């Protein structure tokens, strides 16, 4: 060891000499190494072995077992034994870092007096409640004079800025329209706005946009990014549903509706986590739990839980709880145990399917079975419910659920201690319509109506078959074609059997409903008797259905081509066998029957509601700040806290802490109203300035705006997601097209403009790539839109150019621009094509895809 040390020192003096420096500087050379590699375990967050390394004094003091500066520190960082070597994780320290530490120790481990230790992690700014700063005069210090309406945002942001003039009216209208409804103003809207001289013209425009139903669509897409909206996927081309659910689009429509209705953010968060507990029986709200359904992964429920934990923490709290899955968090005071406490809120859940009025019964939710494909069920709705109140949350090590520690008590639901706040988990009683949805009047009515309709259809078909048989018999007397007559005879028998089956279905339905009345609705009656009647009616129905199947099989045999004969014969044999069994069954007495729907627990644990209330609470220091930051970023193209899903100690500090806090408090004090916040932001001088940090239109906005300007945009809202392959031929808004993290999960056109990655889109990327240029010059879509616009717009020459600029870019052209366009138009041999080409050139103008 002494030898080795001499060697190290030798090198070191060479290094120092070469650098022209005399000594190691603790603050410059040593402390950053400890900070980067050691503080996580030996600093304010943790003091493993009783050791802190965050000040020179602490280092000299040593660990609980004794000092370290003599030899232990060097021994540990240079050890070749990986069990001994520090840091435990990651690569060993680099030789030059080791040399630096060694030199510092050798020269006496000096450090400046008064060195401050790392602050207590619980004192981190984001973990303290936001406090509203006092604003003197409630106005703008600098640009208040240019904003007719003083706005507190300006008071808080102007301090470090030189004043700027406000944007002109056209630029402002374009900006605020794109921001609030995701579409640029048309030329007519621009004209109307310019003609409005009233001082409150802008405020009224803002109000109009905030009340436009397209506002909900625009901001829904933003929140769908944050909340990771995804349509079903897994093996979409097979198809085989592994992730999310085919009815999850109802959650998307709920987002649009909720935003348009001005529902508070706190309420939205609560419904997404626990609509079934805060509003049991309210199906309109229950679809909000699509937020959790979206994370569903059929192959591995543990993964479902992991995603629920990770993304609830990231989306609502700005915390990277996922880092505590395998070990205690390296930066924030989140222990691995805390991770499992958070998970416990979700542990009892499962997915259910329910019918909705006017749609076929989706049936019970299909459990996972490797050998069966998971069918795409398109009717009804999906939501989560507490299936197993006794489900246990086992702690496991190493991020591998195979290492469950079943000898430890299971984790109970609890929020992390450092954020304080109590949760009271109280079970929620559920109404009958939830525990037995078959009791809902509409379900019975829909079924009855369908049964009656089926009878009417069967009757009509029987009539048709009778007429056909009569005709065939008449014809037979002339042609003696026995085969045709036999076919008609068989068709007749089939129609008769079908009518019997349709009636049996209605009768069975009546009997089941009667039994349900006694069994679930508390109507008087002998349950055993009504159950027996219902069960037997089901057997009678099964028999009638088997008869239909047997006749159909008989018909198939007659119609079979020679090469299909064998198969048809086999199927007939099967059908005959099934009929015999149904006949047997029908003779046996029944004791039970199938209720009109599956049944579910009468109670929910209340865990998720407790979590939701804790998150969407005025006392929670993170929730409002995180939401406000997301909203701010989408107006200004840049967030106040750059790490939008990490407000922890490893995240970025806010650029404007006072502003962030002021907005967070304002938000909470105004019912968590997003529209209030939007209005406050877009009426600030900061927002209305001439030079705003530019952003690029999101993929959806590029496409929607082009359709809108071409007068083609389809205003229909909502509904099942449309396949991206159908995008080129459709004029629906882009948010209604399938969005999932696999091939085909974004449109070909929107894909080149950074369509969202539904697995991770807390912040959209904005790229500039040649493929965008190709899409905007070559796609059939851009050619079609250009053609439509060229046809609609009036004027020739310079007049046309002005109209085109105003329509596409919301401003008149400058003289040089008119000149360039005129020269272009003149040069083109075909004036019609030239106009289209000019429109297309404006779509390709950087200004078109840019929001300034």
């Amino acid at each position, binding site marked *: 060891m002494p030898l080795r040390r001499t060697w190290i020192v030798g090198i070191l003096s060479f290094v120092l000499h070469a650098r022209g420096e005399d000594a190691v500087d603790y603050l410059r050379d040593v402390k950053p190494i400890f900070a980067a590699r050691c503080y996580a375990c030996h600093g304010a967050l943790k003091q493993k072995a009783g050791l802190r390394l965050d000040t020179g004094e602490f280092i000299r003091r040593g660990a609980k077992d004794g000092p370290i500066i003599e030899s232990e520190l060097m021994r540990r960082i240079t050890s070749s034994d990986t069990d001994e070597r520090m840091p435990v994780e990651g*690569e060993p320290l680099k030789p030059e870092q080791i040399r630096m530490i060694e030199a510092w120790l050798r020269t006496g481990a000096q450090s400046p007096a008064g060195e401050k230790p790392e602050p207590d992690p619980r004192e981190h700014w984001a973990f303290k409640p936001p406090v509203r700063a006092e604003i003197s005069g409630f106005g703008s210090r600098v640009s208040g004079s240019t904003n007719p309406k003083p706005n507190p945002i300006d008071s808080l942001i102007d301090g*470090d800025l030189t004043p700027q003039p406000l944007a002109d009216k056209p630029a402002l209208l374009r900006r605020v329209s794109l921001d609030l409804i995701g579409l640029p103003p048309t030329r007519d809207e621009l004209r109307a706005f310019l003609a409005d001289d009233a001082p409150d013209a802008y405020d009224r425009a803002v109000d109009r946009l905030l009340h436009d139903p397209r506002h909900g669509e625009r901001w829904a897409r933003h929140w769908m990014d944050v909340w990771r909206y995804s349509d079903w996927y897994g093996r979409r081309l097979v198809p085989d549903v592994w992730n999310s659910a085919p009815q999850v689009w109802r959650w998307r429509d709920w987002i649009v509706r909720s935003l348009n209705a001005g529902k508070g953010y706190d309420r939205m968060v609560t419904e997404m986590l626990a609509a079934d507990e805060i509003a049991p029986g309210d199906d309109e709200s229950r679809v909000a739990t699509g937020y959790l359904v979206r994370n569903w992964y059929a192959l591995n429920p543990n993964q479902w839980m992991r995603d629920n934990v990770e993304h609830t923490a990231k989306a609502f709290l700005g915390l990277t709880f996922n880092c505590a899955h395998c070990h205690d968090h390296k930066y924030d005071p989140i222990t691995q145990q805390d991770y499992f406490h958070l998970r416990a809120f979700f542990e009892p859940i499962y997915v259910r399917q329910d019918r909705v009025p006017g749609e076929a019964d989706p049936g019970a939710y299909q459990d996972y079975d490797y050998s069966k494909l998971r069918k795409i069920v398109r009717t009804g709705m999906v939501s989560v419910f507490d299936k197993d109140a006794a489900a246990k949350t086992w702690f496991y090590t190493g991020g591998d659920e195979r290492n469950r520690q079943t000898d430890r008590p299971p984790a109970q639901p609890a929020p992390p201690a450092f954020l304080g706040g109590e949760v009271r988990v109280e079970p929620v009683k559920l109404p009958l319509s939830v525990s037995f949805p078959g009791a809902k009047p509409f379900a019975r009515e829909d079924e009855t109506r369908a049964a009656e309709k089926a009878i009417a259809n069967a009757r009509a078909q029987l009539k048709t078959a009778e007429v056909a048989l009569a005709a065939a018999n008449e014809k037979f007397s002339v042609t003696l074609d026995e085969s045709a007559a036999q076919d008609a005879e068989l068709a007749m028998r089939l129609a008769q059997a079908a009518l019997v089956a349709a009636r049996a279905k209605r009768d069975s339905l009546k009997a089941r409903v009667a039994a349900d009345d006694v069994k679930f609705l508390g109507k008087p009656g002998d349950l055993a008797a009504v159950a027996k009647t219902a069960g037997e009616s089901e057997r009678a129905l099964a028999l009638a259905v088997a008869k239909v199947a047997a006749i159909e099989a008989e018909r198939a045999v007659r119609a079979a081509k020679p090469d299909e004969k064998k198969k048809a014969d086999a199927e007939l044999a099967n059908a005959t066998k099934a009929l015999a069994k149904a006949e047997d069954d029908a003779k046996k007495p029944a004791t039970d029957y199938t209720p009109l729907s599956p049944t579910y627990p009468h109670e929910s644990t209340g865990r998720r509601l407790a979590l939701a209330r804790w998150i969407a609470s005025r006392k929670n220091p993170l929730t409002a700040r995180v939401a406000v930051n997301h909203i701010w970023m989408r107006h200004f193209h840049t967030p106040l806290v750059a790490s939008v899903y990490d407000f922890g100690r490893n995240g970025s500090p806010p650029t404007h802490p006072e502003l962030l806090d002021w907005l967070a408090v304002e938000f909470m004090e105004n019912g968590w109203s997003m529209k209030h916040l939007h209005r406050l932001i877009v009426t600030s001088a900061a927002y209305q300035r001439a030079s705003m940090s530019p952003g690029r239109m999101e993929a959806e906005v590029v496409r929607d705006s082009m359709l809108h300007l071409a007068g083609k945009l389809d205003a229909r809202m909502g509904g099942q997601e449309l396949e991206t392959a159908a995008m080129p031929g459709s004029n629906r808004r882009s948010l209604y097209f399938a969005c999932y993290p696999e091939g085909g999960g974004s449109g070909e056109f929107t894909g080149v403009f950074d369509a969202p990655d539904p697995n991770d889109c807390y912040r959209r990327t904005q790229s500039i790539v*040649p493929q965008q240029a*190709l*899409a905007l*010059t070559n796609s059939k879509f851009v050619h079609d839109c250009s053609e439509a616009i060229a046809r609609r717009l009036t004027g020739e020459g310079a007049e046309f150019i002005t109209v085109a600029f105003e329509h596409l870019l919301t401003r008149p052209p400058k003289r040089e621009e008119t000149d360039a366009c005129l020269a272009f138009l003149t040069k083109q041999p075909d004036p019609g*094509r030239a106009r289209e*080409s000019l429109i297309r*050139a*404006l779509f390709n103008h950087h200004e078109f895809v840019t929001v300034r």
Partner: protein
Amino acid sequence: MKPRRQFLADLGMGFTGLSLGSMLFRDGVARAAAPDGQPQFAPRAKSVIWIFLSGGYSHIETFDPKPALTKYGGMTFDKTPFENPLNSPKHHARFRSVAAEEVNVRNVYPTIYPMQVGFAKRGQCGVEITDWWPHLAGCVDDIAFVRNMWTTDNDHFAENQIHTGRHRLDEQQPSLGAWVHYGLGTMNENLPKFVVLGGPTRSDTRLSLDSLYLGPQHAGVPLAIDPKSPLPFGVRDARQSEAGQRDEYELIGRLNQLAAVEYPADADLRARIRSYELAFRMQASVPEALDFKPESEDVQKLYGLDNDATRVAGQRLLASRRLIERGVRFVQVYPSAYGTWDSHQKLQEKHAQMCAGVDKPVAGLLHDLKQRGLLEETVVVFCTEFGRTPGLELRNGGKDGRDHHPHGFTVWFAGAGIKPGIVHGETDELGYHALGDGHYVTDMHATVLRLLGLDGRRLEIPGRKRLDVDHGRSIDAILA
């Protein structure tokens, strides 16, 4: 007090994914943290052809023959003189089912299935490979085989895993090609830097070319071997004349230049102007690169373009050569369709046919690269997502196939910076476990990056901490 423009630029620049890598680096737009497009140390290779065979070829019947299997065929593992591989702790340590334990249907197969093909020593180096590679047998002296690969997934998500380095249940990471794209500048601005040919054909394997948080500009660009429509939106609309489009592009350029006068500090605007110049040229360059007309008949034959069995693979590999010849950095090529090597049943028939489809084209590629001197600057990787079980697959009454096997498989490297004619690593005598530490799939990534002069750890971007396992360790034993 900061000038406002500076303030806004600081706020706005952080995330706007300005792409067109080298151009922006040249313009000094990108921030110091981003790579400068130059290798971080002296590179051995300029470009990569990454050949991926989807479905999992049997290491045993390709490049890692195991006569012991034939000898003990039909016996259970515990009846052989060797340690029973089923009892090895490596099972738990290296393997993780995506499906929860209660639904995972893949189990260990205890009955040894004999080798389905003969093998012999080939080349000067004497490496043993099977008889299904008559053409590749002539190239083994240029190849470094790595026989101790392992991965952690026993199902086909492993196809993404070999490209991204992450198991399906882990946080996903960008693909290797995307990291190369991110780390290195372009050598031909008129072509994409990261091209994908022939795949991935399945929606759930798109991760194999994805760039995720690096930004979509770094994702692989799938090209079709069809000069008429090789890339999306790559062909002028029929309504427009060639001259008309040229004029339109000129007008776009002119209008954007005028805007640049107004916004001299707008880096996005400059990037967009450049993107149009590139797009216009790309529209011509891509079809040119994928047009085989200039290739002689001999060359076309070398790749097997004259034969139905080898044509598809041959076209994709010939296109790969033409692309790297023109400066494309990373070509990820799928000579065969998704899952086609997956031989749960009828392994002999399937593998014989699949090998015959790629043997000649791959050998042709190596010959062609060599004779053009391109093998000195290109590294060729040949791989699959996992091996196949030494035991007979028994599911569904199986009697002639092997199941997925993540515990040991073989890949190979050839070309720039690679030691030619060597075998590195081994599986146990039954072809079950990769011996020693073996190599996890990211070791292949580290190897490729190292040859290109990149260190994955230095490519990491702030706020996106990667684990050690994401970086892997380069397989130094095969480096020249």
